């Protein structure tokens, strides 16, 4: 795709100069910046009003005392909310839980996704059908996914425990045990999101250049050698891109944990978004909720920036 784009651009650059001289080219570019800003206006207004303004408002609330009677932030209190939040074991634990979820779930989904994409890539009549069916888990609303898996994982009536019982395992307390509850949340998330990686990976595999493989074959490379030395390195840009998109979704994880475990047992699956939500809208501690949200915002933006630049570098190198 990028190759064809480049040729188009090169052609376009030459066209006006050859045709009617540089003056004509300048004439229809006149007023260009103004029109460009006109095109940008709707999006900028919407984002300024609904994104930028709320971020500053959150910052303001995080530095003030929240008066529940007036229901608005009053008075500057400096770092007080932040000091309180950083001493709140619940918040620190929710950060840890989120970290564990991200560190386990994302690589798992990437590996599974690419492995399944290779499976699906074998050429046969049903290939298209299978790929289309993989769209289905992806469009199941996360809150529905959480609810349905709660039934599947039910210790008493769940199909999973019944099946495990047949081979002599169990009964397993999927939702009741702190560690297993985390395993369950990651399992549900992986079920819901692996298909997304599969579809991106499958498209990437299909787009691999065929002539490289013919060359490798004539040079006598084996199947494993081809996979490790040629296919996987060629797929690095796709992997990097899929990882970034997946990351952007995963840091917002909220609904699966809410529907499947409600953050429990205890705080075992209380991801940070769920914890802040409960602090703000259940305990009505808007000041603390805002400082926590600000901390999460900063962590997320910094980590995303790092991931983006690594991904960009990987995409350009290969």
């Amino acid at each position: 795709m990028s190759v064809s784009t480049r040729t188009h651009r090169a052609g376009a650059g030459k066209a006006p100069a050859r045709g009617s001289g540089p003056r004509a080219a300048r004439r229809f570019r006149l007023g260009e910046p103004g029109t460009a800003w006109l095109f940008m206006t709707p999006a900028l207004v919407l984002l300024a009003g609904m994104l930028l303004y709320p971020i500053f408002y959150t910052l303001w609330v995080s530095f003030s005392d929240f008066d529940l009677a007036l229901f608005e932030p009053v008075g500057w209190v400096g770092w007080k909310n932040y000091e309180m939040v950083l001493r709140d074991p619940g918040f620190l634990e929710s950060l840890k839980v989120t970290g564990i979820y991200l560190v386990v779930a994302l690589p798992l989904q990437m590996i599974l996704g690419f492995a399944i994409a290779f499976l699906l890539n074998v050429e046969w009549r049903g290939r298209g059908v299978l790929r289309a069916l993989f769209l289905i888990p992806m469009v199941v609303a996360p809150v529905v996914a959480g609810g349905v898996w709660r039934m599947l994982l039910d210790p008493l009536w769940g199909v999973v425990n019944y099946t495990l019982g047949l081979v002599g395992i169990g009964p397993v307390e999927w939702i009741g045990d702190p560690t297993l509850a985390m395993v369950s949340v990651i399992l549900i998330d992986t079920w819901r999101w692996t298909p997304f990686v599969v579809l991106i990976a499958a498209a990437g595999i299909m787009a691999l250049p065929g002539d490289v493989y013919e060359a490798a074959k004539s040079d006598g490379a084996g199947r494993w050698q081809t996979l490790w030395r040629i296919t996987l390195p060629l797929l690095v840009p796709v992997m990097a891109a899929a990882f970034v998109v997946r990351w952007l979704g995963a840091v917002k994880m909220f609904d699966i944990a809410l529907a499947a475990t409600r953050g429990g047992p205890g705080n075992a699956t209380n991801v940070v978004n769920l914890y802040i939500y409960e602090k703000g809208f259940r305990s009505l501690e808007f000041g603390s909720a805002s400082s926590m949200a600000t901390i999460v915002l900063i962590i997320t933006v910094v980590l995303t920036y790092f991931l983006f630049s690594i991904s960009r570098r990987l995409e350009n190198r290969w």
Partner: protein
Amino acid sequence: MVSTAAPAPGNRKAGRARLGRIATITAAILVTLAFLYPVIFMISISFKLPKDIFTIPPKWISEITFDNYVSYFHQARILPRMINTIIVAMGAAIISMVAGSMAGYALSRMRMRGAGVMGGLILASRAVPPIALVVPMFLVARKLGLTDQYITVILAYVTFLVPYVVWLMRAFFKSLPKELEEAAMIDGCSRIGAFFRIIVPCSLTGMVSTLIFCIILAWEELLFALILTNDKAVTIPVAIAGIAADTEKGGLWGPLAAVGTLTVLPVVIFALAVQKYLIKGLADGATKG
């Protein structure tokens, strides 16, 4: 002698390759079925009576009932909530599409100072977690008396849809040949005219797949809807979260499965109908940008 011996190892090799192929295809089918199972399970539970749901061993075949659909449909006001979700999802998707495509076009094709910074900022806003926005949205909406209204939820959804549309459409417009609008503009079209008359019709496939993504993302959104609605504008995910919370007592499996099926089915049909665009849009969205 030689001629009869020679094909034998070749045949064995071919046979082994065929066996490997069949094994791979079987594995692919099994994995797909495993991923589909929870959805099949949900649909089957939605048609079962409680006595057939809560049994060990699980019953594969049982009496079919529509009770779960009928009884809870009214009680949880599923129909009005479905309509709310459709209005909110369509509204947010269309507004985001218009604003996002125009911005994506300006960023991909036009000369302007600060385009790089602006584009970077819009794309960076994809990293803003919604949780950082909900407190002010709630407080301001409450102050203005705008809680529990469509427009509030729609505007909240715009925050994550517009950056997404800008990202996808910018990549899409970049892949179109530049001669398209240059020809139109030499013929006397303005930039705006060229965009609406030439570029938009040429980009319909990209726009349709992006629009579908937006509708799906808005359709299943929970956090904003949970905070900004409480009665009139409640969306389906909020209703489901309520039913799911109720299952802690045990017993609402049938209704939860029924509402879940009603939520998922339209999107699945929609997604399968346009799967080609969807898969392409997905891959492009991830790898270009």
